[in-house]
């Protein structure tokens, strides 16, 4: 167009565009990454906690912010998963294993100044079992018959029946000590006895904790801890590379770890968790009600291939509902070695025809979605027709977990030492075994450590033999943090980011 060409002279659009670009990029130049002061920490997590009360919600994120930092229980789980004294200095257990007498620490105060004594223990435990309790692990407290206070610094807890894991359970986030004065407002303004107090929470972005100078024990080296929430794995990797955050203890994208391993600025730690990743089967729905079919599936699934293909090689194969770091672990990984021919024979014996459809429901976590892809490919090899159905978390909870409306699903059971779920009358995978229930009862009531260990082994063997679910692998904890940080937890025996012992090296 001729007009157009004429107009081009002295035409200012180019200049306008140049100015616009310059404005966009201006100021970008001013920077200056200040060296992080040595007593602050910026830690990142994938998910934001919905609130700050671990006694009224299941989200791991609540514990990953508050456990041991803000709140403490009578006992405390350490980085190795062992029970340590917490607000109880020590305890004695009666010979019948029904009475626990806790000697409480004296002079402990909550962040709001309220005193900690036996009345708080009584309040916390009674609140957890009350009819209107919204404790996500109410079952942990179910064995408690009564809590009494002979004096302010002694708490006597009596049980209805022996509970082998009681001291471990009372170290969970769900069992922390809550002051009657602040119990109602802990969701938004958490008040505990821990070495850090809650400072503020910019919803959707960060929580800031600061050192509690009135703490009863050794004061932490860090004066302040900022916990940021970054849900996008690629963006998280970029933020670490850029030095915006100091630590990402539970890093969501293991496939990107290699490039951090070779970078001397970072420590990359592959640790363990209590997460048992399994392909749950609906044990009452044909053909999964036939043990031969369940065993066939176990033979058809190459656990190593899943760990390598879906988890970048991180995670240890398991053969029962127990992880290698749990006490009394028995290695049953090779109960059903990877064997396509054997799987086909077992399926044929059970009358499962080639081309039988099997629907595998996948909740959102990446481990489930990725393992599902590998498992689908493996099951095709034995002639089954797997169909993957990705599902939102809320829908999974409703349809699979609550209503047991599923064939198979992939899920990591993150609660530590939860062999009890196979002894329940009603649980989503519908495993019913009187023998297992009897064994579990025997274990709960046994008081001899050697016998307990033996029974734990029996329980695992029974599960491996019945194979109610296909046991896949223990979920690894993949963490990245600055090479100058000391005292980070390598493993996650329970969901936590205990930073009370963290410090910066010179």
């Amino acid at each position, binding site marked *: 167009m001729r007009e157009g060409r004429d107009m081009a002279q002295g035409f200012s659009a180019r200049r306008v565009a140049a100015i616009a670009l310059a404005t966009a990029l201006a100021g970008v130049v001013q920077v200056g990454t200040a060296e992080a002061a040595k007593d602050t920490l910026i830690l990142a997590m994938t998910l934001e906690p919905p609130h700050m009360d671990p006694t009224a919600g299941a989200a791991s994120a609540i514990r990953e912010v508050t456990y041991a930092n803000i709140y403490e229980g009578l006992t405390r789980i350490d980085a190795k998963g062992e029970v340590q004294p917490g607000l109880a200095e020590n305890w004695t257990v009666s010979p019948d294993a029904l009475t626990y007498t806790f000697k409480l620490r004296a002079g402990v105060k909550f962040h709001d100044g309220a005193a900690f004594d036996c009345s708080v223990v009584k309040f916390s435990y009674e609140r957890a079992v009350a009819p209107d309790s919204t404790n996500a692990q109410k079952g942990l407290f179910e064995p408690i018959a009564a809590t009494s206070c002979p004096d302010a610094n002694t708490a006597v807890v009596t049980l209805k029946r022996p509970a082998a894991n009681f001291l471990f359970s009372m170290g969970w986030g769900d069992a922390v000590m809550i002051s009657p004065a602040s119990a109602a407002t802990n969701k*938004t303004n958490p008040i505990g006895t821990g070495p850090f107090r809650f400072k503020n929470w910019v919803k959707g972005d960060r929580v800031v904790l600061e050192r509690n100078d009135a703490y009863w024990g050794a004061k932490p080296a860090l004066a302040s801890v900022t916990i940021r929430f970054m849900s996008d794995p690629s963006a998280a990797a970029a933020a670490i590379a850029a030095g915006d955050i100091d630590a990402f203890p539970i890093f969501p994208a293991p496939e990107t770890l290699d490039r951090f391993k070779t970078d001397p600025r970072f420590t990359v730690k592959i640790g363990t968790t209590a997460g048992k990743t399994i392909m749950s089967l609906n044990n009452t729905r044909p053909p999964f009600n036939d043990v031969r079919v369940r065993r066939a599936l176990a033979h058809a699934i190459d656990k190593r291939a899943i760990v390598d293909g879906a988890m970048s090689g991180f995670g240890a194969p398991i053969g029962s509902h127990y992880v290698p770091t749990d006490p009394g672990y028995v290695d049953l990984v090779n109960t059903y070695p990877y064997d396509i021919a054997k799987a086909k024979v077992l399926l044929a014996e059970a009358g499962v025809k080639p081309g039988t459809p099997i629907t595998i429901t996948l909740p959102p976590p990446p481990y489930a979605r990725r393992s599902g892809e590998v498992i689908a490919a493996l099951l095709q090899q034995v002639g089954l027709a797997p169909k993957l159905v990705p599902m*939102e978390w809320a829908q999974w909870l409703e349809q699979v977990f609550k209503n047991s409306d599923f064939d198979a699903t992939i899920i990591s059971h993150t609660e530590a030492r939860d062999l009890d779920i196979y002894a329940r009358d009603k649980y989503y995978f519908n495993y019913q075994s009187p023998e297992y229930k009897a064994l579990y009862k025997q274990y709960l009531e046994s008081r001899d450590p050697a016998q307990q260990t033996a029974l734990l082994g029996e329980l695992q063997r029974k599960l491996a033999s019945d194979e109610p679910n296909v046991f896949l692998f223990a979920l690894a904890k993949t963490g990245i943090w600055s090479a100058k940080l000391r005292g980070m937890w390598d493993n996650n025996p329970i969901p936590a980011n205990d930073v009370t012992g963290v410090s910066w090296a010179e």
Partner: protein
Amino acid sequence: MIAWLGWRLVSFVATLLVASLVVFLVMEVLPGDPASVMLGMGARPESLAALRAQMGLDEPLLQRYVFWVARLLVGDFGRSYTYSVPVAELIGQRVLISAPLAILAIGLSTLLAIPLGVHAASRRGRAGDVAVMGVAQIGVSVPNFWLGLLLILCFAVWLPWLPAGGFAGWDKGVWPGLRSLILPAVALALPQAAILARVTRSSVLDVLRADYVRTALAKGVSPRRALWRHAVPNALIPVVTIIGLQFSFLLAGTIIIENVFSLPGLGRLIFQAIAQRDLIVVEDMVVLLAGSVILVNLLVDLVYAVIDPRLAQGEAR
């Protein structure tokens, strides 16, 4: 004009009512229970029942809908199930991030696109045109979240000029806050600018063929003045329409971009709220978003009247 405004007001209220009913029913029908999301896999049935009662979810459906709308009418947005704080407070905090982000993105895309589009039109078929349209073609095809990641890589990792994500907070001053918004705003703006530049170009080209432009040139008006005084204003109507549409699109686009940049804005809030079945937050936000889209459309109509006085007279009804 008054009748027109009255009509718009009626349709505004009607649209909001329909939106509120639809979102309420959809959230009801959607499988998933906020209480089981909160209490997870270890929860006992009695704990779930206690929590449902605490949240008021045990009341009849109709009663909950009517109470919700009635409270909305008096400005009470209710309390978030998951966060246990007033929804108005949550939204209030997050608007302070999403609104500046949207304005920045729209401003940036408009400032880039209109001059570039006009420039391309005025040099149709020549190097400048081909260059602008070529870049625009790429811009239209690139998804904004991917662009966001590239920007993070360039300007936060390789060149440590800007933060890789997160929001510094306005309490630290305007500049630290703005710095956190630059990359996300660019990521949102560039794909939109590409679309807008193409629309501007074709719209200006149409107008340049009109008789009155030829007349203006014939009576001796300089080509530059003919373009800016006669052609561009007449070419703006479709451009403003697209900007209006893009604003609504931005509200959705921020859901993804805010996740990529870990910005605690409205997009991320609604995303989390849907996943956690924080029903009340989702319901409130959908009504608010529907309301703001309608308001923007109204604003676009008013801008038409300013750009083109003929519309104000002719279509006043």
